[in-house]
């Protein structure tokens, strides 16, 4: 549905986007993740035909955005970072105008506007002026404007920025609903958003694509070994010796000690589940097992590890070093 090949954009001497390539399949939600100034907005602006790329090719809904911009734009809905509203226009009039310039046939317009307003829950502000709306409503009118011509592709630049928690959840639900019939790219610098809404993630930093994968795979890839978190009540005794003797356990680290409660982080060989053995050993030693859970590397950790150290490629990170060292490794294998 969307194909980006070796896309670059330079503003004078500044390179905003440098040779990025990725693909999005029909019906997929792709998360575009990166710190501020990473080149997310630039890439989206190129995809929507707002500006041309310096080099490379972008195909949206089967049309090259440089060769056949009108055809590509007809099939694209775009919500820019600030919703493009005319402050002196009422919401209904505004949507009417957008429907007109996006080529919605006159006969379907009224019905289409009604549908879109219901879908984005803005029917109650239909006759208010866009300039008088709260941030949350503006964002939703922006979203309504993007889907009014029922486009194949939706490009949303930080759709949840500035919303309150309830609105964020509603917007995410809406985006997920839309995913079946539309192909969506959304950008964000909020990580949980990606793991909650997106099927695939493109992590971009300083104009480069650092990683493309599913959120789950990214997590797995960066986890060099399995890590368990165990909290036990040993009445003061040290359990680390007993635990490190277990088969498959590679390292036991005492994380925290509070009175009798001791927490350990236990690394084990990849693909080997040591939870049963851990539980049995602890219980048979007469200690109290308070907590036992696998530690997952959060997207935050992944994000940091990928964006703070540029020389650390994901492939290298996936091979050996345990997660704690990935973020700080300066002597990465391939640097």
């Amino acid at each position, binding site marked *: 549905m969307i194909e980006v090949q070796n896309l670059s954009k330079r503003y004078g001497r500044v390179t905003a986007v440098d040779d990025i390539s990725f693909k999005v399949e029909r019906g997929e939600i792709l998360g575009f993740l990166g710190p501020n100034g990473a080149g997310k907005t630039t890439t989206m602006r190129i995809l929507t*035909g707002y500006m*041309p790329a310096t080099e490379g090719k972008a195909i949206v809904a089967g049309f090259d955005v440089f060769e056949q911009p*009108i055809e590509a734009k007809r099939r694209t809905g775009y919500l*820019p970072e*600030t919703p*493009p509203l005319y402050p002196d226009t009422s919401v209904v009039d505004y949507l009417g*105008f957008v429907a007109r*310039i996006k080529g919605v046939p006159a006969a379907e317009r009224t019905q289409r506007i009604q549908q879109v307003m219901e879908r984005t829950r803005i029917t109650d502000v239909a006759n208010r002026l866009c300039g008088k709306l709260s941030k949350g409503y503006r964002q939703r009118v922006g979203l309504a404007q993007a889907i009014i011509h029922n486009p194949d592709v939706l490009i949303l630049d930080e759709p949840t920025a500035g919303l309150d928690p309830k609105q964020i959840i509603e917007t995410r639900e809406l985006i997920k609903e839309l995913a079946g019939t539309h192909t969506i790219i959304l950008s964000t610098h909020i990580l949980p958003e990606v793991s909650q809404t997106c099927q695939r993630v493109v992590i971009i930093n300083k104009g480069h694509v650092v990683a493309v994968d599913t959120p789950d795979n990214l997590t797995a890839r960066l986890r060099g070994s399995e890590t368990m978190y165990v909290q036990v009540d040993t009445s003061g005794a040290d359990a680390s010796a007993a635990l490190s003797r277990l088969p498959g356990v590679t390292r036991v680290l005492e994380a925290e000690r509070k009175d009798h409660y001791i927490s350990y982080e236990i690394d084990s060989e990849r693909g080997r589940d040591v939870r049963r053995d851990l539980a049995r050993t602890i219980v048979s030693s007469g200690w109290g097992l308070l907590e036992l859970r696998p530690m997952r590397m959060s997207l935050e950790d992944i994000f940091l590890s990928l964006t703070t150290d540029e020389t650390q490629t994901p492939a290298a990170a996936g091979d050996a070093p345990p997660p704690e060292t990935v973020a700080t490794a300066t002597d990465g294998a391939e640097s």
Partner: protein
Amino acid sequence: MRNILAIAQKEIKAYFAGPIAYITLGVWALMYGWFFNALLQFFVRQSMQMNQFGMQGPQAMNVNQQMIRPLLQNVTVLILFVMPGITMRTYSEEKRSGTIELLLTSPLTDFEIIMGKFIGALTLYGVMLAVTLIHIGVLFVYGRPEWKPIVTAYVGMLLMGGCFISVGLFISSLTKNQIAAFMLTFGTFLLLWVITWIGSFAGPTIDKLTQYLSIVDHLDDFSKGVIDTTHVIYYLSFMTFGLFLTAKAVDSERWRG
């Protein structure tokens, strides 16, 4: 064409939804009324003096020559002042508020957007001219002016206004700041008006050149009741050039980002 109309309608709505149309029309009507009143008083006094000398009937003063023509010439100066207020927002405001992103990512060509904005501004200017017809109507009630030179004068004013609008659009497309757009446009208009002033001292060639460049000078024949194709072509090519520059400015902005 459908798209041009959609943009033009949006522009007209925007003028009348905000204060711009009302302020422009108000100032315009007030100033025009003032000009009209002053010239009318002058004309009435003169014709009364003529009457005392016993010149009546066929020798009576010509309303077209003595009243309407100087009135419309004065009004062109007024247009210089009012027009930048109409055109300053066309692109600047869209750039500042980010709505330009909506237009440029919609299935519209640059030409359609520019023409839509041009027609929108021209319509507001048309409304301004329509207001002045009230005063002209008063002259028809009390006198017998020729209607044909009035029609040609209005055709000329419409063409001249189109030139101003095309320049205004171009300048507005260069900046996000409406005040900057206003000042630059106003300066350019003023320069196009006074450009002939140096002509008479600078030798015959430059005199001719500056006269040709002056937008206002080309209106003279129209207000005499003459439609000269030279002037029509001048105005039309001036407009085309202004709109062409606008298109290039919008396009280059896109490349520069």
